[in-house]
């Protein structure tokens, strides 16, 4: 099989999936009153449990809901919310919407890329950070804007990036 055909091969960062995660998902699916039209809901829950949606989990869901694997994968790859790659503990979203862009959002993005040594969309080797860009989170008054997990940082300057990152790095040391 030509290797290049595998557009999305297995990820290097992938680790064995704990059995308990499957059991938790199974319990959730069993608790649903019907399986009709539940795919997106189940995918959401699965991503909460596993942190991402690896191939085996997608096929597991397909079997349980009686859907074709291709259909499930089609939905997973359609919505940007779903991810097939493991994400870092902290997901850093840099806004590159119009207002943030004008206020230097792209320079901010570059700074994060340099400091974390990853490209946008990727996860650091220690699986601590995933760097992403978003198009407007609806808080343009705070441009340029960075969201790390649920915490919002407004009017961020590139020179503040190191400080922000160290908050999360510190957490590990503590």
């Amino acid at each position, binding site marked *: 099989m*030509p290797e*290049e055909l*595998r557009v999305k091969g297995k990820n290097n960062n992938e680790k064995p999936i704990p059995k308990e995660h499957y059991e938790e998902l199974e319990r959730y699916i069993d608790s649903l009153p019907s399986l009709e039209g539940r795919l997106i809901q189940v995918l959401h829950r699965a991503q909460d449990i596993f942190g991402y949606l690896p*191939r085996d989990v997608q*096929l597991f869901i397909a079997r349980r809901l009686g859907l*074709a*694997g291709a259909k499930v*994968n089609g939905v997973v790859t359609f919505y940007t919310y779903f991810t097939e790659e493991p994400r870092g503990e902290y997901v850093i979203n840099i806004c590159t919407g119009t207002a943030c862009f004008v206020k230097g959002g792209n320079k901010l993005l570059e700074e994060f890329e340099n400091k974390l040594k990853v490209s946008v969309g990727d996860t650091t080797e220690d699986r601590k950070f995933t760097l992403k860009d978003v198009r407007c989170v609806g808080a343009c008054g705070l441009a340029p804007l960075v969201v790390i997990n649920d915490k919002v940082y407004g009017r961020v300057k590139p020179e503040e990036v190191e400080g922000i990152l160290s908050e999360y790095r510190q957490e590990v040391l503590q």
Partner: protein
Amino acid sequence: MKETVKVTINDKEVEVPREYTILNAAVEAGIKIPTLCHLDLHDLKMVNRTASCRVCMVEVEQRPNLAPACATPVNDGMVIRTDSLRAIRARRMAVELLLSNHPTDCLICQRNLRCELQALAKELNVREIKYTGKRNKYHLDTSSQAVIKNQDKCILCRRCETACNEIQTCGILSALNRGFDTIVGPAFNLPMAETSCTYCGQCVAVCPTAALTEVFHTHKVWEELHKPDKYVVVQVAPAIRVALGELFGMEPGTIVTGKLAAALRRMGFDQVYDTEFGADVTIMEEAKELIHRLENGGRLPMLTSCCPAWVSFIEHQFPDMVDVPSTCKSPHIMFGTIAKTYLAEKMGIDPKKMVVVSVMPCVTKKAEAARTELSIDDNDNVDIVITTRELGDMLKEAGIDFDKLPDEDFDHPLGESTGAATIFGTTGGVIEAAMRTAYEWITGETLEKVDFKQLRGMKGIREATVDLKGQEIKIGIAHGLGNARQMLEDIRNGKSEFHAIEIMACPGGCIGGGGQPYHYGNDEIVKKRQEAIYKEDERKSIRKSHENPEVIKLYEEYLGEPYYGERAHNLLHTKFEAKERI
């Protein structure tokens, strides 16, 4: 009474049923609106109405935007213009935009002059590639033995997806990703060979471009034909003779059996044979196996096993039921086996030097021929499979004027066949052929009226009872894998009370196979092929497989008793195995 509405299209008023789309109404009014992604196969109840190509845009009064005719329902008093400058330009632009991300290698494309996008570009007078920009470039998926997927040529009409999911319920193909990155492919964009695809080829049959095609073997056949030490025999399936003529401008349903034999001889095949001989042998085995199962409390219902896509479907999708189908090899594989044993012995030819080429209406037979268990001492029962379309290409390449060929006969001894074998090409045919023989074997009486009309038709699932002088045989028939799935689920749940079931993967049976001349959405063509099959059956002097003199001789001289004979059993039967499902 059906509710109707009045609509006006280009100043012409028509009254049409309320559930019509603008496109349906335009057809009624005799006005042509170009379409591309749209496909409506009435008999199969397949409608692809994704409205993704925007080629059918029309103006609707009081609507600011143009509307896609294929997906916009009519309402009373609607005023539609298909011929305004704005509509004409919008339709042309839709094609120009498709072409901006489509290879322009039409001259060397497999679908050259058979491509619906190309035809549309001409029809809409596209004269330049107006928009240039980023183009997608993907890798060609040549992983499978039967189907090639060329994503670069995909226009995302999603007809293949509809055929694969709704008609065949295989669920192999789906749209993946979004926006400019959208592709159509298997889960995780796996290579086709790593999926549970049955290679039924219905995606190929409905693809408007060369995004999905069969794996081409014409060059291999030419090479073998010109090797001096090879003895190349060819066999043609029943469904070829009622379809090949279409490729040479003949009316659908024209029977070209005689010209077909003549054409193959002109191409240089050493012997020109008929898969119908293999079909007659199949009936000898299958009818006997059915009687064996009936008399000995064997697994019932017995399912036919002539269709390799169907066999692959049960292996992947119903792995717990692989003991249900008959163990018979498919007719062309039986033929290949007999050619490389009985015929080779008779003619004093080393079977290793014999090359068996099958001309099939089918894409999946290419994958079937490559199954390792269908070989003797590493010598495949069948070496090369080409489709009806590929044969048409080869005849044109060879400069054979098909129209002017005389009618010739097949060679013997493997060229004799009966009407029972002919009807293998249509849904309902295999089981009717089996009944003609089983009737006589079970009752010991002569069957006067050979037509079992209750088994015929185009309905997706059919049931009938055949009365064998007191013993009632309940027959089920399904064509299209979605219908097959329903049958299998009924069997699994104990709801089905059939004795015998015939299943063909392609809608209509082999006449509607994935390797047949393209029908371009006109399912009348498949019906005409079916009528021709029954006409050919009636024309035959012998219409029961067990009366084929050459088949009788084969059993007497070589195979022994059907099904029970040691050689018959070893050579003509196979086994199926449960496979993983992706």
